């Protein structure tokens, strides 16, 4: 246990101090000073207290991380673990008030990260020792992991049942169902983008453009042509898919990272056209957005306190008292249905030749070409199908909001959807759901921390790429193998000759 690594304590302290010095220099201009707007000029305020506190935490943390590797994992785990739990308990019970909430959370994060690192190191050291002594280590843990893996299979169906029953539960108030709608919209968008990014391996940074196309198509069709939601939905999806093909066609020859930037460019171009667009008479584009978009009706029954001419309200027909929650629940089921169809469609198409071609193309385009897969058509299908789901989701967004404007479709939105797919594990359906719940639902619950939401998104994207480039719940296995019984004896090595 006390196997010391080669470094002496003095070295570790020196290393920690170096890290401290670098972080001081990094924090000095931007954290140490704060520019404050006054009416006539900008003033400076100083924040050196917070800065030195943060630097101190970083320095100490670095020292602790070195000490963990030097064999002090156990005591550090005990102390940091206890501190982390105590802090959480304090947050819940509100015993001690902190004068700086943000620094408190930062400290908690640092302490927790150290605790996790200590735990990992401790486990690894134990396993090494057990191996050296020839006994099996962690049989129980392995069983638990296997059980967990099996439980993961039930997570999907259980989640679906929960999602179906959720609005009917006693705790489901309007806010809760609204939040469910929001999360499900992002789940659907995530699943749609997963086709493009996760399965076909095409990094699309302008996905929100197709969402916008869907939303504007629905707005146009319903306001100008009098389509209702269900009539407009397929048309909006087709419009978005057409845009996907139109935009995809010229760029698919490009390599991955160029493709990403060009899709970003297309996304921004569509947004700028929507923002500055001329008045086409039929299509009123512009920064003001489009309002009064019709709400969906339930087989002709409208959701409103009183029925317009020639209609019956939902509440009247079923003999209920009018309540605004009826419409919210109805919207919830629409998006749930649409999301489930997206999921079902994706799961099925993965097993078709086209889906397998996507996965193959993701792994090696040149090999695919050699085997006679047409990369252009394959990529275009992925683009079109991904765009189509975004178009559906966009129509839903328009009918739910009743108002759309170009500002809803900026790059940040694309980045959020991409973050959901990336963090969930590219190609994993359930991972997208978990990521959407955490990334979209979480900030809604912790409103105070909403400001830090995007900061955390960015940080998490980097962290996940650095530590687990395949995503939290990765699915990179081929969906179908030729010979299921005999897995390859040697792990396929990725030979890189350059």
């Amino acid at each position, binding site marked *: 246990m006390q196997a010391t690594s080669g470094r002496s304590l003095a070295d570790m302290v020196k290393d920690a101090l170096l890290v401290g010095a670098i972080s001081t220099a990094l924090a000095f201009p931007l954290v140490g000073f704060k520019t404050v707007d006054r009416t006539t000029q900008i003033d400076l305020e100083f924040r050196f207290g917070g800065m030195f506190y943060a630097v101190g935490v970083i320095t100490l943390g670095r020292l602790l991380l070195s000490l963990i590797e030097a064999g002090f994992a156990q005591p550090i785990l005990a102390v940091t673990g206890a501190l982390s739990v105590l802090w959480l308990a304090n947050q819940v019970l509100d015993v001690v008030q902190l004068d700086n909430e943000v620094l408190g959370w930062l400290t908690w994060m640092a302490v927790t990260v150290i605790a996790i690192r200590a735990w990992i190191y401790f486990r690894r050291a134990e396993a090494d020792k057990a191996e050296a002594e020839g006994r099996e280590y962690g049989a129980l843990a392995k069983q638990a992991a296997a059980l967990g893996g099996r439980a993961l299979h039930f997570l999907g169906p259980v989640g679906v049942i929960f999602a179906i029953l959720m609005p009917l539960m006693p705790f489901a108030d309007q806010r809760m169902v609204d939040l469910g709608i929001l999360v499900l919209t992002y789940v659907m968008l995530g699943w749609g983008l997963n086709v493009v990014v996760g399965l076909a391996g095409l990094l699309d940074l302008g996905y929100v453009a197709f969402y916008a196309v869907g939303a504007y198509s629905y707005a146009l069709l319903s306001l100008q042509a009098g389509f209702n939601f269900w009539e407009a939905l397929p048309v909006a999806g087709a419009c978005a898919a057409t845009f996907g093909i139109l935009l995809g066609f010229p760029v698919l020859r490009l390599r991955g990272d160029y493709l990403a930037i060009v899709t970003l*460019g297309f996304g921004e171009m569509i947004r700028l056209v929507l923002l500055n667009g001329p008045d086409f008479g039929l299509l009123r584009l512009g920064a003001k957005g489009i309002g009064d978009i019709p709400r969906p009706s339930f087989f002709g029954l409208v959701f409103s306190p009183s029925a317009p001419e020639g209609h019956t309200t939902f509440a009247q027909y079923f003999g209920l008292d009018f309540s605004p929650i009826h419409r919210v629940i109805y919207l919830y089921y629409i998006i749930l249905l649409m999301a489930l169809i997206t999921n079902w469609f994706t799961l099925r198409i993965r097993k078709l030749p086209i889906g397998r071609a996507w996965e193959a193309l993701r792994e090696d385009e040149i090999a695919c070409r050699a085997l006679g897969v047409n990369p252009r058509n394959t990529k275009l299908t992925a683009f079109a199908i991904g765009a189509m789901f975004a178009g559906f989701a966009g129509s839903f967004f328009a009918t739910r909001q009743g108002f759309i404007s170009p500002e809803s479709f900026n790059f940040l939105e694309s980045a959020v959807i991409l973050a959901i797919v990336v963090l969930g594990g590219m190609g994993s359906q359930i991972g997208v759901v978990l990521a959407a719940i955490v990334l979209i639902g979480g900030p809604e619950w912790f409103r105070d921390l909403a400001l830090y939401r995007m900061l955390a998104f*960015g940080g998490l994207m980097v962290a996940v790429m650095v530590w687990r480039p395949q995503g939290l719940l990765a699915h990179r296995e081929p969906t179908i193998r030729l010979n299921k019984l005999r897995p390859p004896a040697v792990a396929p090595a990725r030979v890189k000759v350059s």
Partner: protein
Amino acid sequence: MEYFIQQLINGLTLGAMFGLIAIGYTMVYGILGMVNFAHGDIFMIGGFVSIITFLVLGLIGITWVPLALAIMLIMAMAFTALHGWAVERLGYRALRNSNRLAPLISAIGVSIFLENYVQILQGARNKALRPIISGGVELMTSATGFTVRLAYMQIVIVLAATILMAGFSLLIARTSLGRQQRACEQDMKMARLLGVNVDRTISLTFVMGAALAAVAGLTWLMYYGIIDFYVGFLAGIKAFSAAVLGGVGSLPGAMLGGVLIGLIEVFWSAYFSVEYKDVAAFAILVLVLIFRPTGLLGKPDIEKV
């Protein structure tokens, strides 16, 4: 004619700044083959460090303009370069041998992180700075009364950019560091075998790119007198378009591309429509990538299996 010359001057000024940012993109792409999506935000940080340095100098009482400018320049370059170094060390180094998309996604993460980091620390409103160098010369007046003005600030920007680019080209062409950098660009494995410290070279590439972006940030702040946390997104994409237009991986290409993008943007807003000036830059990027992916001065990029 006079209107045209005025636009030419404005376009060259803008293009000089884009060129400074584009160098960072092109060098990183040349050596690592990745699009450093966060580079635009490094540029933004350069602007913020500049404005904070200026305010601190005001507090201390250093108001002599040349001295203040020199200190701002040094501070912006030093602190921004440190940010560039840290971004590479924390966000990209671990991903050097992974698949192509991982570094790009990480870079997008860094970009989102930096934007919100600055927004939280410095506020979301844009920061205005009164002009430090004002005035200019009137070159000519047309019959209709349109006067072509060349602001001193524009002279400073174009001069600074030219000097920096020339010095930088010399650095890459003549010094040992430049040779190592080019060696890594051609064949990293071989360079390592021949004793080049690859990690250090890559770090220095990021440091140099960030320092040049910091100069662009400083000049941007002084030219427009305004900066906010989101400025790096658009400027970054335009500079990337410039790097692509000039040929990714090519230093003269980045400078040429920068000037061209600056000119295109200014002329587009002058003669067509201001609203669509960003569309023009994106359209150039898309068209170049589709019809001439190697850019104007780039070498063809052959993918080996």
